[in-house]
């Protein structure tokens, strides 16, 4: 499938996740996206899948405790904490947390599919007048694995001196050099792009294969999915 319709379909799934509050519909979307993610290379996929699923799990487990819906059956009543207020757990809060967690999982997994499996080059090429914006998005997406690599290099640099990083606070000390390093990388890339004529007027496009019937079906399906989610789900 061409990257344009694929991206439209993924965006439609993410939009539909915000339009529906039916748990079964969200669960179906999450499972389908998870299965698609598993087609990505093993080494690359787990960071994305793990990030999406653990974030969703965090929302499901923690969020019911941080607010009170005032409805449903009260299952447990805890102490009143500063800032947070009374801590309790009700059936309403659990249901809403599951919906929000699944939404987050769907959006995270849709992003994972986009990052891991979509051909960003063809997407940039198909972007026409919005090529610069599409290229910026593609480069930002590629920044994720570069950051991952740099973070590993920084951690190794510290461990290589016999110093162990302990807990979130230890790893947090790497944030500043990580940001500084990514800015250096971005500057280098911008320089290389300018040296290769990026931004010059009169750019052309290398010929690409035309859309197939599958691409047209995917585009229609994307529109239908949003409509169905808005009207019936």
């Amino acid at each position, binding site marked *: 499938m061409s990257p344009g319709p694929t991206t439209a379909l993924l965006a439609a799934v993410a939009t539909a996740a915000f339009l529906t509050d039916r748990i079964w519909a969200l669960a179906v979307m999450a499972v389908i996206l998870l299965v698609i993610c598993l087609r990505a290379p093993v*080494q690359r996929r787990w960071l994305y899948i793990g990030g999406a699923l653990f974030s969703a799990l965090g929302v499901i487990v923690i969020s019911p405790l941080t607010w009170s819906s005032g409805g449903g059956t009260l299952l447990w009543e805890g102490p009143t904490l500063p800032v947070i207020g009374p801590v309790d757990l009700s059936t309403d809060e659990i249901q809403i947390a599951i919906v929000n967690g699944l939404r987050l999982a769907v959006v995270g997994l849709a992003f994972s599919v986009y990052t891991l499996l979509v051909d960003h080059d*063809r997407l940039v090429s198909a972007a026409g007048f919005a090529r610069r914006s599409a290229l910026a998005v593609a480069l930002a997406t*590629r920044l994720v694995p570069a950051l991952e*690599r740099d973070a590993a290099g920084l951690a190794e640099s510290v461990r290589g001196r016999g110093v162990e990083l302990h807990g979130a606070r230890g790893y947090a000390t790497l944030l500043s050099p990580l940001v500084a390093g990514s800015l250096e990388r971005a500057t280098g890339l911008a320089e290389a792009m300018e040296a290769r*004529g990026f931004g010059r007027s009169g750019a052309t496009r290398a010929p690409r294969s035309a859309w197939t019937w599958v691409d047209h079906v995917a585009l229609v399906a994307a529109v239908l999915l949003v409509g169905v989610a808005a009207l019936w789900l």
Partner: protein
Amino acid sequence: MAVEVLATVDGLSFGYPGGVAAVRDVSLELYAGEVVALLGPSGSGKSTLLRALAGLVPHFHGGRFSGRVEIAGLDTRSHGPAELAGTVASVFQDPEDQVVMTRVENEVAFGLENLGVAPELIWPRVEAALADVGASQLWARRTVELSGGELQRVCLASALALEPQLLLLDEPTSQLDAGGAEGFLAAVEQAHCAVVLCEQRVDRALAIADRVIMMEEGRIVLDAPVAEARVWLSARRPRYAGGLIAHDPDRRTQAGAPLVRLDDVHFSYGDGPDVLGGISLVVHRGEIVALEGQNGSGKTTLARIAAGLLQPTSGTVTREGRATYLSQDPGRYLVRETAIEEVALGVAGDEVRAAAALESFGLSFATCRHPRDLSSGERERLGIAAVSVPEPDLLVLDEPTRGIDPDRKAALAAWLLEQADAGRGVLVATHDPLLPAHRRVGLDAPVEVPVAA
């Protein structure tokens, strides 16, 4: 036959914003079709001169610019790098920082699209450029899956596809093994354009050059045909004339106590093939062991295992005492806000020891400066100071000579010998046959490992 002047540099001086002059009153002419080797120590202004020839100085970097640079009749003061692209093409040192697209063929096509080449000509030119650098088989591969050597060839193909009149190469072989570098430079030799090759492996550059320019402290100190330049270098800069950095010391007759012993070590990344298949190795006190082999032969992996940063998939590793590890490109992985904090990190914040280490590496002036404000050479020295200050029993260094000039390489060689004489074990993964070692261990059967690994 009249020789066509392709580029003219006339009285060029340039200083980066907030910095001293990087290039001072440089004048030269470049001729069509010639290959020029641009030599000089780190910080001598070579990269700045290349950037001026590409129009990146001053358009991209800003700074104080005086003089005139003209390429094929285009004055770089009024024509920016994007306008010069196509007439000039550049390949920078680190291929990872110049790749834009995710697939090889699109990466090579990127510049052609920017230049407005007719669509029907783009794929044939991409195909021809990849064939010219011997990388046709990489078509349709993802750029993140390529090794450093493969990626550098793709960068060269991207430059050659533009059919430039002037090709600028800034230390393009620093990450390649000997075979990879030879292949790369053979492809450069076939390019039908003028080439300026900035290179720290001087012998490689001289082998293909017609002319040599040497810079020191921002000025040209030598501009001569290659034969004449060899004589000049032999007399005045012998290290640049292919002179040995240091002779290998004699193999230790009485080895010290073993510091690390690897027995039948295997390793693979994830589900990938074995990068190491049954390696056994011992490093003793007081000896330097050089790990040699092609890109992808597992040198870095073995060095990480020896330093305790990776666990082998199978086999045993026995270690005595403290080991420290210096990664490739250490200047990229500095983690503190000042140089003294960076060095003190390995000695629990002991700034007295850190200050002494900074002084011994000639970095006292940088004590309170941010590591990223230092030059690349200074960053590398800071990295070495940071791993040596804990006075480890075993020093593991990964490609420590990458991109460093012959003088600094000689200083590094002397320092390694001092460390061995002080009773430390040193394990060095290197492509550089000129680094001194008591033993050299060859790793063969390279396995393709992507840059990302």
